[in-house]
């Protein structure tokens, strides 16, 4: 059921992404001080916003999992965090490039957003090792959900505290994010946010569909084979197992 609207979503995402990239390179004006390299801001900041939202979404989905005990929420939470982790790496890389372009160093401690992001990523990097270290699937899911909620709460708090503790050396960033952008820049910025969001959503649905399909395949194999023990047992995995993949059976 997750595969149905994938194609439409993929086409829309591709279209909006292309449009945004064209706009970034050909339509948005060059920044007065930073020049051409400032344009990486259109990738870095939307990606950062979407990544953090993804982490928080993972926490909200985890709350649902703990409340209902249904494993499908755990799967949704896992995929949300997983995709956000991948995007997060992109944020750190583009952030580093932007730092080099704007301030001449590959890393700056004076940029609170970048520092907070590093901290958040260090925390979320333990998500999969944590899951992998617990074999019992139900305990794994529950522990992962507890973690996702704690980490989700940590994200905004961490940003606030790091921001409070950092001297404002470069207020420029705040100006840019708080919507203090001239007309064209702002439009392209919002287009960028839209495309990154769609990309995240597309990848989320794609991974969900992929997991469900593997589970369905396995279930079919199980039903077709006579012997209960015919299938090799699933390898230990950090990913949640998908149950009753929509196929009724014995």
């Amino acid at each position: 059921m997750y595969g149905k609207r994938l194609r439409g979503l993929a086409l829309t995402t591709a279209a909006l992404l292309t449009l945004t990239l064209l706009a970034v390179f050909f339509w948005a004006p060059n920044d007065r001080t930073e020049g051409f390299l400032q344009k990486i801001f259109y990738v870095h900041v939307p990606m950062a916003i979407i990544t953090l939202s993804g982490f928080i979404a993972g926490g909200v989905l985890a709350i649902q999992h703990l409340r209902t005990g249904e494993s499908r929420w755990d799967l949704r939470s896992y995929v949300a965090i997983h995709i956000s982790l991948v995007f997060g790496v992109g944020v750190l890389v583009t952030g580093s490039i932007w730092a080099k372009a704007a301030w001449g160093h590959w890393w700056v401690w004076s940029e609170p957003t970048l520092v907070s992001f590093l901290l958040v990523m260090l925390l979320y990097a333990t998500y999969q090792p944590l899951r992998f270290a617990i074999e019992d699937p139900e305990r794994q899911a529950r522990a992962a959900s507890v973690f996702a909620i704690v980490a989700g709460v940590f994200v905004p708090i961490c940003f606030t505290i790091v921001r409070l503790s950092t001297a404002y050396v470069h207020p420029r960033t705040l100006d840019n994010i708080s919507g203090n952008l001239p007309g064209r820049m702002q439009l392209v910025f919002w287009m960028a946010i839209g495309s990154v969001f769609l990309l995240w959503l597309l990848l989320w649905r794609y991974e969900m569909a992929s997991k469900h399909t593997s589970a369905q395949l396995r279930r079919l194999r199980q039903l077709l084979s006579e012997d209960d023990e015919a299938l090799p047992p699933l390898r230990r995995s950090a990913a949640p197992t998908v149950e009753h993949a929509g196929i009724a059976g014995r």
Partner: protein
Amino acid sequence: MSDSPPIRTVVGALLRKELRVELRTFESIPAMTLFSVTTYVLFHFGLQQNQVGGSLASGVLWVTLLFAAVLGINRLFVADAEQGGFDGFLLSPADRGALLLAKGAALFLYLTVVEVISVPAFALLLLEPSLGAAMPGLLAVLALVNLGVAAIGTLVGALAVRTRSRDLLGPLLSLPLLVPVVIGAALSTTPLFSAPARAMPLHWLVILALYDLVFAVIAFALFDYLLED
């Protein structure tokens, strides 16, 4: 119909058991204390400084105490996991939250005992300004740091204990979550350790207290889910 015994009694019994086992096995406190003193020596050699003041002093103190705390967090639930303590507790009608309170209180106590030795040791070995004037402020910060570590440490300890790589996951999970505590503590004590000593920024104490409160509440809300099988 089994009535749940009053939470005071349960927390008291759990804490007494906790302290009794610690006094007989000495698994946490001596190791944490010794580790912190050794780390001060390491810092002396690593930084090549005979004395530190200001932000350097804050950094050495809090990072050392943090790593010592992580040792304690790792050991917090091990005895229970290995000797069926979880089952024994879960089979009783006692309120689950009591375990969190008792373990948190135990960790707080362990840290306090460690700090009674470790902080003077720090002052002796490395601290440049005298400790006397800084004491009241330092005590307040220590109390808030211990509270934060107790809340987050108990949650992370329970999370990590029944995993295969608990000794690795404990630190990996708790350190990022404790960074804001280090930020608050360091920014509070840097003026205290400067020569001449400056006043402590009270707003950081407030921020630290709020952080502790938020995570204490979250730990309390989520703890039950970690105990179940």
